[in-house]
């Protein structure tokens, strides 16, 4: 274990990004990933430990101008408690409901789940189906600069993101979905709680009668990052949801996922699950 020479608990975004600009910092929020990772040796503490929980700009859950803004520090429990998330982003709400256990949901933040960038991160697939963007703040030349990037581009590999060392994830932005939008989430693990997904699936689409448009399908734990499934989406886009469309989508999904074999499941098993569980979710859509 390395030594932490300084501990900081900034009280403003400006203070936090100044500290990041100054150097080698480990960012601490909920700590639910950071602590096990530093204990296991997967991650070492940098000389400065910065606790961002007192930064007010990173909080809040607000809708304005057709955009939902979720502060990076929003806990999974707060998302679960939000009627707006439940009504408009039900797939994300379902992912939060399946997230670890209550004690961890009370501490873990959505910003942490994103920056940890696990291929199996529970909130990532529903966020991908919602066209979520991440807002990154930094202070390169004495004033705060922000950039916004789509989540799909932000996730670059297992545990890796496009976040620069001097950048802080400030918020997640989700464009409010149009009328008729629905979303759903499915996670497969060996027990319902505290399990890392063998696979996860999030779907989102606008429904007009039987026809689906703006179809978004995302898969977790089948690639180095959570991914959108372009061919699967194309098989459903603009068509009525019937047996032929579902067959085409399932075939596309199995064809376009190339999962690894690891301790949780073999590649073959994961692809079977992706196909079968996607079929179950789409059947449910077709029958409801």
């Amino acid at each position: 274990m390395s030594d932490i020479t300084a501990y900081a608990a900034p009280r403003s975004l400006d203070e936090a990004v100044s500290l990041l600009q100054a150097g080698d910092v480990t960012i601490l929020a909920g700590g639910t990933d950071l602590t096990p990772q530093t204990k296991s040796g997967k991650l070492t503490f940098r000389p400065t430990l910065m606790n961002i929980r007192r930064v007010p700009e990173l909080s809040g859950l607000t809708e304005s101008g057709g955009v939902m803004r979720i502060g990076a520090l929003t806990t999974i429990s707060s998302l679960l408690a939000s009627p707006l998330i439940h009504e408009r982003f039900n797939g994300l709400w379902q992912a939060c409901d399946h997230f670890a256990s209550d004690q961890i949901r009370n501490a873990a933040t959505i910003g942490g789940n994103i920056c940890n960038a696990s291929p199996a991160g529970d909130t990532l697939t529903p966020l991908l189906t919602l066209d979520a963007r991440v807002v990154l703040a930094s202070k390169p030349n004495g004033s705060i600069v922000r950039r916004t990037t789509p989540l799909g581009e932000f996730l670059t590999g297992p545990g890796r993101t496009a976040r620069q060392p001097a950048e802080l994830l400030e918020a997640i932005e989700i464009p409010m979905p149009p009328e008729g939008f629905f979303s759903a989430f499915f996670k497969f693990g060996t027990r319902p709680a505290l399990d890392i997904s063998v696979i996860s699936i999030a779907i989102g689409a606008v429904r007009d009668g039987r026809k689906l448009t703006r179809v978004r399908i995302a898969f977790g734990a089948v690639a180095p990052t959570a991914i959108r499934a372009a061919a699967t989406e194309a098989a459903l886009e603009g068509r009525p949801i019937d047996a032929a469309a579902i067959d085409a989508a399932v075939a596309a999904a199995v064809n376009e996922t190339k999962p690894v074999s690891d301790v949780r499941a073999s590649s073959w098993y994961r692809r079977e699950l992706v196909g079968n569980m996607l079929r179950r979710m789409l059947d449910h859509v077709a029958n409801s």
Partner: protein
Amino acid sequence: MAKVSMTVNGKVVTADVDPRTLLVQFIRENLHLTGTHVGCDTSQCGACTVHVDGVAVKSCTTLAVTVDGANVTTIEGLAHGDHLHPMQEAFRENHGLQCGFCTPGMIMSAVDIVNRKGSNLDEATIRAELEGNICRCTGYHNIVKAIGDGAKAMAGHAQAAE
């Protein structure tokens, strides 16, 4: 070193700690409150569950510095002197334990479940809500019974206090 100050079981405590200090280490080693247990040390088992500002967290993945200024309740903070908390009493009455190692975490989670879900808990709800606590003896049957009874007793207690 980092300075932390928090209220634990109603008492204000202040200390200089290594920033890496876990809340559970702080509670056990600095405050010598050893009722909070470390089971798996990877936030799976829930034996380390305490309440921070009224909600349950796992103290083995919480750094002490992050709860600076907070109100922490451990298993030692539930009883009033010799009077056990109704949930503790229910665990005793139902023999809601085998080896007892997971019990402090089970009781802290149980109280949290009642706080969130109310006192009228069916078995399915209790089992689902107890997802973050593992009993290695698999003694869930009596634990679930104890929580159901404890929840009712907590409601009776609250009424009596009004």
